[in-house]
Structures are given as structure tokens and as C-alpha cells.
């Protein structure tokens, strides 16, 4: 049995619009195991993107996560219960996004900032999440340079730099220790329900958010026009890391690429940059939200190949979102089919393609043009329902060829038909 890395449990997300409440997610339960690529498939508007945005807690404003659990198991192995990130503070999420979980967004051209250089945008995550490592390396290089210098002014300037970097590093380490102790205590209080401990937990969360204190001297130096140039050393360290990262992703001319802006690059290159940003801190889970939907087939093949090789080398698990069943067959190990906010079927890829059980999955697979297709394509009649007033019971019943009376009344429970193959449909489970 492989270890679970991410688990969502009965997740409900609503969007409060003027027309009414859009019930985008209707109890989504998904698990991603260590070391696998999980594909989330569905048509547009079925809630794939909302699911992953909920996991990252970046649902846009009219949207709200109403109910459910998102449990992460990424820290030490003794934490068998996992962390419910819906109960944690925003600052905790900020420290986690891009560090433990990172995301590749749909359109590379719109997810990159057009006014910042590539080097800045990729380096930001090093600067944000790996500042201690950067500081240590910078101190080392400056100390190396210090040994060779004879000129009086340069010598003292370098000594000042080292002092400032050491100060920052010390402050950062204190902060991390403090946060660690708070996190340990918070972890113990995770499941608490009584008023006193809940109050204590909220207090700890607040204290965790306010723990970062700035160093007065460093702040002062950063304001003085000439002195603030001392930071150029750390920028150089970050830059060298960015260059080596881009090299490992197969970006040609990575030295030049670092100084260019997004519009100077082609679509495939932009997507590589977005992947570089996501991979900067070696995340344990990479969420890829339709990473190839706007690219050409040949470029798509390049990117898919890249993600495949990266998965073998660096990232442990990938949550891959797509509407292209061909891509799922190509790179995923397990897959979940979504329809109108429900996960209707979860199984290994081979199982889904050879033995689809849910009527929607069957219809979807039949309506895809295949390589050896000659005869007429079969279709699913009707269209995706409006989620402001979704169909009662099973949300697929108005389009389902096997709809029964019970489908109109009750939401089907998820039943495990065989090992690792579960389906949410009233057609199954009765006989067992």
C-alpha cells in the first residue's frame, strides 16, 4: 500500500454570485499517493480547476470553501494524522505554497508577469522560501573573496556585508525555531473542539503570523542609497541558482533567458519558465492545471516529456488536470473522472480505459476521436447542467441512458468495486 500524500474529504466549494449560489464542488474526495501521477479529467466547468484551487486555498472572491477537509501528509512520518490546511492560517499557507505544494497554471503567457524579468520571477521563490540557504552561500562566497583582498576600503566593505548577512541569517533562524515550536503545539491541538483549546489554537495561529520581526540595522542599511548595494551579492547567488535550474529544464541560452522578459519567449519556453517557478523549491506535490492546453502538439509532446522525466528525478507526486483523455493515457497512473462537481469514477488508467463503469465515463470515452476510428462518433446527449440549480440526486441523471428512479432522488455513494476502482453510481453496489 502506497502512502497517501494528499487527501480531500467531502469538499464543498460554493460561488456566491448575483444569479445565485453556484455549487461548484459537491463533495469531492480525492487521494493522491506518494510517487504517482493522478489525473483529474472532465469537461470545462466540471470543477477540476476549482478543486485544485481549493487545495491551494486560492479560490477567487465570490467562491468559498464551505465544508470538507484537505489533509496533507508531508512532514515527518510520525504525523500519521496529517495537517488539515483548512484550519491553518493564511501565513501558514503562504509559507507552504510554492514550497511544499506548487502549481503550474493554465496559460503560461498570462500567469507570468509581463513587467518583471524571468530571473526575478523564478528567483522570487528562492528568495522567499530558501532565504537561509541563499544567505549561507552568499556569506561563504564573500568570505572567500575577503581572503584575497588587500585594498583597505574593499576589505571593510566586504566585512560589513558579511556582518549584515549574518545578522539576517540569525534573525531568520530564530524565527524558524519559534515557528517550529508553535507548529508542534498546533499539531497537537488539531482535533480540539472545546472552547479553551480552540481559543489557544487561534492565539497560536495569530502568534505564528506575527512571529517575524525585522532587524533594525538591516532595515536602515537597506534604505541608504549607496549602502543598500550590499544586496547585489545575494542576488548573484539567486541568479546562479536560477540559471542552473533553467539548464536542468532544458532551456537553451539560459544565461540570456534570465535577463529577458516573458514576451520575448515562445509559448513552449514560457511554459518551461512556469514549470521552473513551480519546481524551484522541490515541492512534494506538483499541481499541473492544464499545462499544455494552449500549446501545439509538438510543443505539448516536449512539455509532457519534460514533466515525465522530472517526475522520475525530482518531484514525488503530480496532480495533473486535463480535458484531453489522450494525455491521461500517456502520463497518468491513476485517474479520477469529474462531472458537474462530482467525482464519478476513480481507477488506474488502464482500468478506466479497458473497463469503464460509470455511464459518463463510458460516454466520454466513446465520444473521443480515436486513431483507428472510422464509423460515426457516439455522443452524450444534452449539455452540462447549470450548477446554480443542479439536478437532484445524481447530477448526471438527465443525460444518463441508464437513469432509474433512485437516481433522481438520491446522490449515489462512492462504492469500491474492485481494488482501487471506485465508482459513484446507483447501477453498482446493489448486487454486492
Amino acid at each position, binding site marked *: 500500500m502506497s502512502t497517501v500524500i494528499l487527501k480531500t474529504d467531502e469538499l464543498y466549494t460554493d460561488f456566491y454570485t448575483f444569479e445565485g449560489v453556484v455549487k461548484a464542488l459537491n463533495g469531492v474526495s480525492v487521494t493522491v499517493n506518494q510517487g504517482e501521477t493522478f489525473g483529474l479529467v472532465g*469537461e*470545462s466547468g466540471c470543477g477540476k480547476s476549482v478543486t485544485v484551487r481549493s487545495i491551494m486555498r486560492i479560490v477567487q472572491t465570490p467562491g468559498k470553501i464551505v465544508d470538507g477537509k484537505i489533509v496533507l501528509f508531508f512532514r515527518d512520518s510520525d504525523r500519521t494524522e496529517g495537517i488539515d490546511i483548512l484550519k491553518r492560517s493564511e501565513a501558514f499557507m503562504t509559507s507552504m505554497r510554492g514550497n511544499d505544494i506548487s502549481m503550474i497554471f493554465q496559460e503560461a503567457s498570462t500567469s507570468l508577469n509581463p513587467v518583471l524579468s524571468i530571473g526575478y520571477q523564478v528567483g522570487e521563490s528562492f528568495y522567499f522560501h530558501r532565504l537561509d540557504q541563499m544567505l549561507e552561500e552568499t556569506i561563504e562566497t564573500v568570505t572567500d573573496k575577503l581572503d584575497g583582498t588587500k585594498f583597505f576600503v574593499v576589505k571593510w566593505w566586504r566585512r560589513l556585508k558579511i556582518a549584515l548577512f549574518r545578522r539576517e541569517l540569525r534573525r531568520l533562524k530564530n524565527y524558524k525555531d519559534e515557528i517550529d515550536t508553535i507548529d508542534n503545539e498546533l499539531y497537537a491541538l488539531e482535533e480540539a473542539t472545546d472552547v479553551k483549546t480552540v481559543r489557544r489554537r487561534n492565539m497560536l495561529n495569530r502568534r505564528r503570523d506575527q512571529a517575524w520581526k525585522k532587524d533594525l540595522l538591516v532595515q536602515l542599511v537597506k534604505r541608504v542609497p549607496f549602502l543598500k548595494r550590499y544586496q547585489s551579492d545575494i542576488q548573484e547567488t539567486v541568479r546562479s541558482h536560477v540559471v542552473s535550474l533553467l539548464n536542468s529544464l532544458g532551456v*537553451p541560452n539560459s544565461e540570456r533567458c534570465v535577463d529577458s522578459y516573458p514576451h520575448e519567449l*515562445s509559448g*513552449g*519556453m514560457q511554459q518551461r519558465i512556469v514549470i521552473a517557478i513551480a519546481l524551484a523549491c522541490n515541492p512534494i506535490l506538483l499541481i499541473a492545471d492544464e499545462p499544455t492546453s494552449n500549446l*501545439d*502538439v*509538438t*510543443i*505539448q*509532446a*516536449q512539455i*509532457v*516529456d519534460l514533466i515525465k522525466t522530472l517526475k522520475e528525478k525530482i518531484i514525488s507526486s503530480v496532480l495533473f488536470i486535463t*480535458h*484531453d*483523455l*489522450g*494525455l*491521461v*493515457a*500517456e502520463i497518468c497512473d491513476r485517474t479520477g473522472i469529474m462531472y458537474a462537481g462530482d467525482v464519478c469514477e476513480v481507477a488506474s*488508467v*488502464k482500468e478506466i*480505459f*479497458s473497463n469503464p463503469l460509470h455511464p459518463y465515463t463510458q*460516454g*466520454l*470515452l466513446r*465520444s*473521443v*476521436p*480515436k*486513431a483507428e*476510428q472510422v464509423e*460515426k*462518433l*457516439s*455522443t*452524450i446527449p444534452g*449539455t*452540462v447542467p447549470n450548477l446554480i440549480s443542479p439536478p437532484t440526486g445524481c447530477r448526471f441523471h438527465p443525460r444518463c441512458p441508464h437513469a432509474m428512479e433512485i437516481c433522481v432522488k438520491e446522490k449515489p455513494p462512492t462504492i469500491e468495486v474492485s481494488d482501487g476502482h471506485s465508482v459513484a453510481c446507483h447501477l453498482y453496489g446493489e448486487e454486492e
Partner: protein
Amino acid sequence: MNTNLLDIRELKKYYPVKGGVFRHHVGDVKAVDGVDLAVKKGECLGLVGESGCGKTTLGKTILRLHDSTDGRIYFDQSEEKIQKVEKALASKNPKEQEWARDELKTIDITKYRGKDLLGLRKKVQIVFQDPSNSLSPRMLAKNIVTEPLVAQRVVRGRALEAAALELLEKVGLGKAHLKRYPHEFSGGQRQRLAIARALATSPEFIMMDEPTSALDVSVQAQILNLLKQLQQEFNLTYLFVTHHLLVVKYTSDRIAVMYLGKIVEQGETARIFEQSLHPYTKALLSAIPIPDPYTGRKRIILTGDVPNPVDPPPACRFAPRCSYATDICREVEPQLEDAEDGHLVACHRWREL
């Protein structure tokens, strides 16, 4: 009797690039650079290529939505006449050339003006890529589909509504949809509206500019089936522009593969899929993700991107990305040659590969 509805000869479309202080002409984006193509009556020709290779520009030039830089397009002309004119153009006799140029004014659609053009527009129609952008949000469905009829002054007044209903029924919509705005329709229904509008003037030729790229799989299948059914019903000729190869395989009789403004391979659909000759087509075919986890096939992964069409590679345009390229590929431009009954390929080394 000519079996070709459309004959395209040496068609070129350049977009000028302006630069400098006085915005002078510094170069050209060679979007379509010398294309020879023939579309037979009643067939569906799939035009495949990566984005930026000029497939949409080619289609729009055929429709006279863009004016071509050079080249000739014959629409529904007799074969003898085309050959006669082409021969005269190629000859060195100035008198014959002048005669040919006079003749072209009446048979070459790139030279059509005024009434001729209006008449042409009746016969050729287009379905655009994204239905949500190609339908006016302020017009009712009935006005959208009958607008070509109004512009052609075929129908007017009270008869319009009946005509609109007839068109909507052709594409599987009904009376309830007549008085709705585009935003009230779903994506698939919007594309149906766009198809109904293209059908309004009962054209002979329809250009499909990626009609299903903005749609979901289950809806895509509905639209593709509808297009096939309409083609049989009204004996239409399609130019099907898309980058989705499996869609092309399902809809088209013949396929033309385009790369950087040139046609590199052309032939029957089955032949292209089974024994493609050009290395670009091979790479393109191997890059399609096939929805079947059991296919243990090897992918050919191309390195690099499509080169800039302002300054394309001098000889074979695919040479910088081609793994089989030799010196001749970088020096001499390959011409389309017939490999076997109508299977054309533009590559120096197709015999060896």
C-alpha cells in the same frame, strides 16, 4: 468538367513589418509563401499544422478576407481554361501574357471586385474558431443567422423569420431559440448558430477554422457528426483547418500538412496516417496523445520551436529541426513531388527514410 472546385497556384501572403523612425518597410512576415493546393468537389480537405504556420491566413485569403500578395485562386473554373491561362502566363510572348492577365480578371478570385465579389461571397462561407467571439452579442439568434441573406438581398421582411427557423432546424436548434441572444446559448449551441449562419446562402464551399477547438469532447463529437451529416445533405466542400490530427482523421478525405507557410505533404487521409513520408508529418503524428494506455509506441520529439516567419530558413524550412537534414536540405529548397498517385511530398530524402 473539372473535378476541382478550388485551384490555388503559387499563393503568397506577406504582412509588411514596419520599423525605424519613418515607419519604413523593413521586412515581411511570410505567412503563406507559395502554396499550390487543389480542393476537389464534395470532399473535405484537412489542413493541419502548428499555430503560426499560416493555415488560417491561407483560408482567409481564399475567402478574400485578406488580399493576397501574389498568386492565383480559381474557383469553379473549367480545367482547360485554367491550363490555357497558366500556359500563357508562363510563356515569354508579351501578347499572350497580356491576354492571360485580361483573362485572369474574370476567373481569378483574387482580382474580383464589386458585384463579382458579392457573388463569390454567396458561394464561399466560413465558420470561425471561437463561437463566443464570432457572434455579435447584441443580435438575436434569428438576426445572426439571416444576416448573410439580408446582405445578399435574397430574403427580407416577414420571410426572414421563416428562413431563420429553417436554418436553425438544419443544425438541430428550434423555434425556442429564435429570439435569444448568443450569451444564452452553450458553447456547442453557439457553434451550431455559426454553422447555420454559414449555411444561410447555400454555399458550395465552407472553410472551417478550428470549429471544435473551443469545445469539450462530448460536444465536439456532436458538432463533428453534424458537420458530416450536413456535408452529405447539401453536397458541401470543406476546408477543415485544425491542429487536432485525430479530428482531421475523422472528418477529412484528404490531408494537407503545412509548415511555416508551405505545404510539406498532401495525400489521402489513410495514406498520411499509415505511411507518411515527410519527417515533419511523422513527428506530428507521433506527438498526438492517443487515448489508449496500451499503445506502446515511440514518440519523435522535435527540439526547438517553429522559426520566425519574418526570416525563415533559406532552403528546406524544416531543416533546422529535422534529424535527417543533410547539406542539400540547407541549400536547395525541395519542391512538392508526386510520390505515388496523388501523394505529394516536399522533401529531398523521402525515398531513403
